[in-house]
């Protein structure tokens, strides 16, 4: 099948997501990048599931989607709390743990 293409797509999405997590200043955008990473992993899982015919990959992907959703909810709540405190979502300002 078209496995390689799917893997390449997933890799590209993953790299874009990692770039976003590391470099984006906006907290919401970081969360969106994390979603991107998670979804890239989903594509990988489904692609392999389709190739081997085992259904466990797709089941796992469903789990990931659920966890991602929960995580985005919590993450947005934290970003909202930060916004309330700092009046901005620039995560460079959150460096209280600086050693």
């Amino acid at each position, binding site marked *: 099948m078209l496995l390689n293409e799917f893997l390449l797509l997933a890799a590209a999405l993953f790299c874009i997501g*990692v770039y976003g*997590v*590391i*470099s984006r200043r906006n907290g919401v955008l*970081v969360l969106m990048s994390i979603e991107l990473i998670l979804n890239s992993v989903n594509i990988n899982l489904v692609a392999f599931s389709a190739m081997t015919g085992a259904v466990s990959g797709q089941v796992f992907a469903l789990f990931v989607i659920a966890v991602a959703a929960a995580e985005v909810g919590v993450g947005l709540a934290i970003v909202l709390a930060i916004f309330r405190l700092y009046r901005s979502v620039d*995560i*460079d300002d*959150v*460096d*209280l*743990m*600086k*050693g």
Partner: protein
Amino acid sequence: MLTHVWIIPLIPAIAFVAILAIGKKLPRGGSEIGIAALAICFVLSLGVAAGWIQRVNHPPAVEANGAVAAAVSDGHGEAAASDLHAAAEETTPAAEESHPAESASSGHEEEASGHEEEHVTPPVVRTVTWFQSNGVKFDVGTMIDGLSTLMLVVVSLISLLVHVFSTDYVAGDRRYTHFFAFLSLFTASMLFYVISSSTLQMIVGWELVGLCSFALIGHWWEEKPNSDAALKAFLVNRVGDIGLLCGMIVLFFAAKGTFDVVTINTMANEGQIRHMLLLVASLSLMTAVMSKSGQFILHTWLPDAMAGPTPVSALIHAATMVVAGIYMVARLYGVFFNGFSIGTANINVMAAIGAVTLVFGGLLAFVQSDIKKVLAYSTISQLGYMVMALGVGAWTAGIFHLFTHAIFKACLFLGAGSMAHHIHSFDMKKDMGGLRKVMPKTFWTFVIATCALVAVPPFAGFWSKDEILAGAGQLGGDGGYPLMLIMGTLGAAITGAYMTRAIWYCFFGERRGASATHEMHENGPRITVPLIILSIGAIVVGLVNVPNTGFLSWVPGSYALRFEHYVEPTGAYFPGGLETFSHPEFNIVLALVSTLVGLTGVLLAYLWYWKDLGPHGLTERSRLARGGYKVLEYKYGLDILYVDVIAGSVKGPIARAANWVNQNVIDGFVNLVGTSVRRAGGWVYKYIDQGVVDTLVDGSGAAADVSGEVLRKAQTGKVQAYGAYLFLGATVLAAIFVIAS
């Protein structure tokens, strides 16, 4: 009786304790106890004397064949002794026996294969074990022969008279009771000393009389000069005691480990002791004699001892204690006679010391203004006679002189006390004079005693002094002891002169000073009766030893030389049996010459003082005379040497130097060790503990600090950075996994 003589010293000893305990409460302050004790002692001494005389007249018999070799000395004689005992016990009727007491003692029956005409009277020895050391037992006990009997009688008699005298003389004294207590203790010590059977006992007695002398000289110790005199007496005697201890120790070992007097003497006489040892012992003991018996140059304490009450001077420093040295020589005569080779020499150490003393002491009597000091120097001089007598080999003469001297010198001292009793001063020049009219008994007794001292016949002193001079001339090696003879005769002149001087100052001329202002009268019987008794003695006692040789050979043998007969020891323990021993003979020429010389001295003094003739004021005119006078005044500089130079430097600079060394050198070293260790500890602490070890400890802390500083830079607090590390790490791990597989 003769075996229980130990009771005699015990009585005054008990009196001493009793007087101290209850004396103050008694009506006469304790003197009753003292006098009672002494009276008993005197009576007992007379009893002992009677017993001894009887023993001499009927000596315990020896074996039938008389010439038993003297099986003696190192205790081996016990078997032989017990045999002789058995024989003696059967045959002797009346004489007292000596019982060698409890098994361990060493009773001696001495037999001498001696002179045919001489009887042999063994001494009575009784001992008990005192202590043991090195498995050997040492005894204490009594030894009675003529000499000790004589001393018992003399000491107790003079002590009794002095006691009686003191009840008046010392009445009202601040420490009356104490005085009598120590008089008793002294008498006990002296009596103990004279009956000693061993040299160790003699040392004990010797020192004890020294103690009593110290206590009595310093009787008025509130005033420093008195306590100074007491200290001086004790210390000078202690110097002599070095010789006493060393000499007795040498004799102990030379006699193979015994202190027994009889044994030591017998061994010395029989040549069982090397001559060198006898000589060393004799020389050592001579220093003791020099100090105790006031011989030149250790005599300096005696004049100062006059600071004590007069009865003390009479008893101790004239009649009894000072003769302790003489007694020791007499008692150990076997040692001295053989050690100094007295029988064969023309000069020896002992005779020389005696001769020098008698002249130099006599000279010093001329420059004294204190009557007691005159008498003190006179005593020194007379002691010199006694030592000289013993030194030339005239044993009996020396002891006889001891006897006569005790009597007339005590009389003189008590007479001086009698004079000073009311005026409390002894200064002849300042405070006396013309006393003969108001104190006749004192005057006449004093004159009689002086005649005895100056050796005017037939007074006591004549017989004794003449025998000494005869001995000096005749005994010893060929030619006798000429130097001693000359000095002895010279001494007679000096004696006559200074005594006449003293009599002039005290009894003649105008009454001066205190005697003028005081109402002077004769003293009561307690003072005068002893004086009279003693002066009678000074007249008659000489007659107990009248010789029957030479000019006097008409004197019946049973009457002549009674003193010698009873007092001079016989037996192997006395050198009387040796060939070199002999007795002086009466020489009429010598007797006349010496008497004339003595009277010449008297005459010269008489002319000087009564008639004012002679070079008066010489010391002002002549530097030489003044210098000589100064030498005498400064007592030949000896006091300066002893007190200022020797004692002063020892207790002053030398002691301080020793202390300085102790504190600054020895202790300084100790303290230095202490401070050094402390400083070393401090250095170690500062430089090693703090410097090195602690630095290492601190360093590890610092290292942790620095690395922390460096590593904290990684903590930016930014989530994205942490995320980057996370992904980086994961990538590396993945790479490793991929490559590794």
